[in-house]
C-alpha cells in the first residue's frame, strides 16, 4: 500500500490543450483531507502536462451549483469534490452534455460524468489490524466527524479490521461504546475532549475520520502518550508535530482519482462511468510513515490482510451492522 508518484515519466511535456477545474466543498482547500488531496492530483497534472487548474471553493451548499456551472462553462473537465455535490453536479452535467465532469465520493449516472468512489472500509480495515495488534489494553476507539454513511464506512472497516486480529478489542467498537462522533469536522477542541474521554476509558489506540477534529485527537494522544491513527493523508507528514504518536494513516488517494481522470482526458480516453478505488487499485492504503512507529511484524500482518482483500478473500463490510456477522478468514 505504499503511495508511488504516478505519471512522473513525462517531465515537462508540451502544454496540453485542455482546461481543468475543481470545486471544493465547504471544507475548502487546507482541509488536509480530500479537497487538498484532490488538488494535489491536479497540481501533478499541472507539473506533468502544464494544465493549470481552476479552483472554486464553496462557502455554502448553495455555492455548489453556480461554481460547477461556472467551471463547466470554462473548462473541459470539472471535478466536484465531495458527496454533498451529487445533486448539484447532476443538474449541471445535464445542462452541459458536451462537457466532462467527475465527482468524488458519490455516483452520478450520466454519460458525461465519471464517478470516483473509494473503498474507505478497506483502508480502514488495515488501520483496524494495526490497532488490534498494537493495543495493550485491548480497547481501541474511533472518532467520527458527523454520523453519516461515508464516515460509517471508515468506522465499519476499522471495527472489522480490529475484529479480525483482536476480537476482544472490537467489542467496544461494535457496541459503539468506544465510538464517538463530534458533530463537526472543524471543532478540534471537541476532538481533544472526545479523545481524552476515550483514552481515560482505557483505549490506547484511536482512529479518526473527522477532519480537523482529529487534530484534537493527536494533541490528546501526545499529552497522554497514547497512539492515534490518522486519515485521508499521511498525517505524520501533514501534522509533523504529532508524528511520534501517529501509528499510521489511512490514505485515501483522491489525488490518484483526479490525476487519472485528468490524464485520461488529456490523452483522449476519458470514460464516463464509475471508478471504484480500493486497495487493489491503490486508491486506499496505509501511509509510508507507518514504519516509523509500527513494528515490522505488525506491518507484515497488515500486508497479508491487504493481499487477502485484494485477492477478494476478504470482503470488508461497509456498514456497522454488518460487522457483527463479519469474520475474517485465517490469514497465513
Amino acid at each position, binding site marked *: 500500500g505504499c503511495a508511488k508518484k504516478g505519471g512522473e515519466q513525462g517531465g515537462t511535456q508540451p502544454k496540453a490543450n485542455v482546461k481543468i477545474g475543481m470545486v471544493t466543498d465547504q471544507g475548502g482547500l487546507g482541509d488536509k483531507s480530500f479537497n487538498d488531496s484532490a488538488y494535489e492530483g491536479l497540481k501533478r497534472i499541472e507539473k506533468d502536462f502544464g494544465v493549470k487548474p481552476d479552483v472554486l471553493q464553496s462557502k455554502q451548499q448553495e455555492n455548489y451549483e453556480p461554481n460547477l456551472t461556472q467551471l463547466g462553462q470554462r473548462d473541459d473537465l470539472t471535478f466536484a469534490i465531495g458527496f454533498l455535490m451529487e*445533486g448539484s453536479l447532476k443538474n449541471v452535467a445535464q445542462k452541459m452534455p458536451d462537457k466532462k465532469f467527475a465527482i468524488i465520493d458519490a455516483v452520478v449516472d450520466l454519460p458525461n460524468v465519471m464517478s470516483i468512489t473509494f473503498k474507505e472500509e478497506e483502508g480502514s480495515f488495515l488501520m483496524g489490524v494495526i490497532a488490534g495488534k498494537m493495543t495493550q489494553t485491548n480497547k481501541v476507539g474511533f472518532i467520527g466527524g458527523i454520523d453519516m454513511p461515508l464516515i460509517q464506512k471508515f468506522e465499519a472497516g476499522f471495527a472489522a479490521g480490529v475484529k479480525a486480529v483482536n476480537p476482544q478489542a472490537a467489542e467496544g467498537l461494535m457496541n459503539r461504546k468506544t465510538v464517538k462522533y463530534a458533530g463537526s469536522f472543524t471543532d478540534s477542541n471537541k476532538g481533544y475532549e472526545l479523545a481524552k474521554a476515550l483514552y481515560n476509558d482505557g483505549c490506547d489506540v484511536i482512529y479518526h475520520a473527522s477532519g480537523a477534529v482529529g487534530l484534537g485527537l493527536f494533541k490528546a494522544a501526545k499529552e497522554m502518550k497514547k497512539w492515534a491513527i490518522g486519515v485521508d493523508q499521511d498525517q505524520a507528514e501533514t501534522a509533523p508535530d504529532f508524528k511520534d504518536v501517529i501509528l499510521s494513516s489511512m490514505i485515501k488517494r483522491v489525488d490518484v482519482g483526479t490525476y487519472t481522470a485528468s490524464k485520461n482526458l488529456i490523452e483522449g480516453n476519458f470514460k464516463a462511468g464509475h471508478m471504484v478505488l480500493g486497495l487493489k487499485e491503490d486508491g486506499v492504503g496505509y501511509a509510508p510513515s507507518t514504519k516509523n512507529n509500527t513494528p515490522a511484524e505488525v506491518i507484515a500482518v497488515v500486508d497479508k490482510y491487504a493481499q487477502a482483500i485484494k485477492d477478494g478473500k476478504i470482503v470488508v463490510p461497509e456498514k456497522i451492522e454488518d460487522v457483527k456477522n463479519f469474520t475474517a478468514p485465517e490469514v497465513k
Partner: protein
Amino acid sequence: MANKNTTSSKLRAALNTLIFPIISIIIAMFIAVFFVMWAEGENFFTATVTLFQAIWEGSFGTSFSIIETLVFVTPLLFTGLANAVAFKTGLFNIGVEGQFIMGIFAAAAVGLIPGIPAFIHVPLVLISGMLIGALWAAIPGFLKAKVGTNEVINTIMMNFIAMFFVNYMIMGPLNAPGKATTPLIQDSAKLWRFLGETNRVNVGLFIGLLLVALVYILLWKTTIGYELRAVGLNPHAAEYGGISIKKNIILAMAISGAIAGLGGAVHVAGIQYQAIQLFGFTGFGFDGIAVALLGKSHPVGVLLSAILFGALNSSSLNLQLANIPKDIVYLIQAIIIIFVAADYIYKWIGEKRKKEAMING
C-alpha cells in the same frame, strides 16, 4: 400644497437614508482594495479595477450572475424580514437560523408525499415550513412571556437543537439510502423556476418580494403592527393602552419564525429540492441579522440590503477566479455594516452645521 410639501420632504428623507449606506459601501470597497493590494501585491489601480470588475461581473455583469445573485437574495429576504419583525417588537431573534433550518426540514419531508397535485402540494409545503418555523420561534417567545427567560439564550440554544434534529432526520427517518441527504422532493412540490429548469431562480423570489410588501403593511398599516411596534418601543405604555405584552411577544416571535420557516421551505422547494446534511449552520439566519440591521429593520431597507448581500455573496465566485481571496467578500460586508452603524458621524456633521447657522443667525 401642504401635501406636496410632505411628499417631497418624505422623498428627501428617503434619499438621505439611502445616501449614508451608499457612501459606506463605497468606502468599504476602497478599504477592500487595500486588502486586495496586500494579498496580491498589486498596485492600487490594478487592484481597484480587478476588484470592482470581479464584483460587478460576479453579481450583475452577466445573466448567469444576475440569476445567481437572485438565488442568494431570496433566502436573505426571508431571514432579513424575520429578524426585522422581531427587532421591531424589541426582541432579538438570533434563532432565525434555526427556524430556517426547521423550514428546510418541513419542506423536505412534506415534499416527499406522493400523489398530491401541485396546486395543493406547493402551498402545503410552504405552509408546513411556516408552521414549524412559527412553532420553533413561539417556544422561546412563550418562555419569555410566561417565565420571563431571555429569548436570546433560548434562540441560540434552539439553533443548535434544530441543526442536530434536522441532521438526525436527514440521516435517519428521511434518509435517501447511502446518501447524506433526503430524497428529492416530488415534482409537484417544486416551485416554478420561471427562467427554465436549469436556472435556479424561482417564484420563491416573488414570494419574498410579496412578503416585503406584506410585512410593510403588517407593521405600519394594521392594528397588529401598531401593537407589535408599541410593545417594542414601550411595553409599559402598550400595556396601559390595552395591548397585551405577552400575547404580542409570542405573536412577534411566531410571525418572525413563520417568515424564517417559509424561507427554509422556499429554499428547499425552489433551490435544493432536498435537505442536505448540515456540517454547520446555513448562515442565512445570521446573515439575516446583518441584513435586517443594515436595512434599519424596515422592509424596504431589508430588500435593498438583501440585494447587496446577495450580490456580494454571489460575486465570491468571480473573485476567486480573479485570484482574489473569497474572504474579501465577507470583509466588505463587515466593513459596510461598520460604516452604516457609524452613521452618527453624518448626523453629527449635519447638526453641527445647523447649530452654527443658529448661533450666527
